[in-house]
């Protein structure tokens, strides 16, 4: 019984940690992987604002590589530069911008997300898989 309890705790601990990691961020992508997937173009905020998803995808790796410029900015700052968000991450407050949209249930939807800190300022920028979760 004691051994069973320990094994159960071990399973709960491992699955809990695995769930927690997926819970908070879901599947994300590095800048290198983004470049391999969509190519690379220099990031330009006005162009990103009006670009089609394919063009946005090409700028994703460059944006991620220079994410430091976004740290500390407000949601309003992000929306002023990049336009109205069209993705969704956890809540309607968090700016998220789609860069690839699935056309079937077998496809994938990806977005760039500007994560907030507790003072509602940007603390990180990630490329996140919107679908499937």
């Amino acid at each position, binding site marked *: 019984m004691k051994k069973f309890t320990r094994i159960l705790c071990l399973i709960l601990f491992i699955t809990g940690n695995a769930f927690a990691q997926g819970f908070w961020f879901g599947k994300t992508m590095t800048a290198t992987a983004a470049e391999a997937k969509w190519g690379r173009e220099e990031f330009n905020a006005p162009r990103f604002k009006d670009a089609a998803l394919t063009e946005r995808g090409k700028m994703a790796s460059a944006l991620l590589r220079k994410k430091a410029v976004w740290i500390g900015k407000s949601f309003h700052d992000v929306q002023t530069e990049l336009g109205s968000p069209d993705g969704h991450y956890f809540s*309607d407050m968090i700016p998220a911008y*789609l860069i690839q949209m699935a056309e079937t249930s077998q496809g994938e939807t990806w977005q760039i997300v500007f994560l907030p800190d507790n003072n509602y300022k940007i603390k990180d920028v990630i490329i996140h898989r919107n679908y*499937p979760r």
Partner: protein
Amino acid sequence: MAMGFTESLSRRYWLSISLCFSSLLISGVAFSFTIIPESCPEWFENADVKPGIACVYNCVLIPTDIFTNTCPLFCASLCERDYAGVAFFKITDLYPGLTLTERGFVVDSPREAMIAYSYSWRAESTCDTKYFASGRNDESDACRHFIWAALLTQRLGSQKAKKSLDAHEDNPAEPTAERAMDMANNRAGILSCERLMESGGCNDKNELTEFQTELRAGKIIVLKQRHRGQ
């Protein structure tokens, strides 16, 4: 004597749990030394919120102006003796993107808040079967709000569901039209579930069918059509 593998991991598991609680306690103490903006103590005192139980919840609801708009973030420090409220408020630090009213809702009704949170995921999963992206201001957004409102109504009743949903929408930075869209679709979801509950059929599948019916009938508000109104 060498420790067995599972025994070693089991001890580390309990050690990690202990460290987790200790860090929460330490952070609670550290939080008491947070530097509070000058305008906030007076803002708090003028509101005449009583220290003790429910202090944090009442504090985050105090109206603010340009000089005090960050003060609700310090409610956990301003409130004395509301230990449960402070603890729950600190927990909301872990959840990104909650409005201040939502954080207050967590303090006031932690059980309902957890249900609301888990059901928001459920609504998103339900809508994912129809739309292959979680978007904003489009049909998928309308679906999420409709289904979430319906599921909360089924579980908590209309009044508590509305309280939770209104807390989620209390975001001063959200454009008026977007907020109006969300609230209208929340209302539609609540009414839909009330109708279906009479026949015992308010669940994910039936609500998704209802949503699609109402969308085609033009009864759902969508600001940006992405899926041709389907």
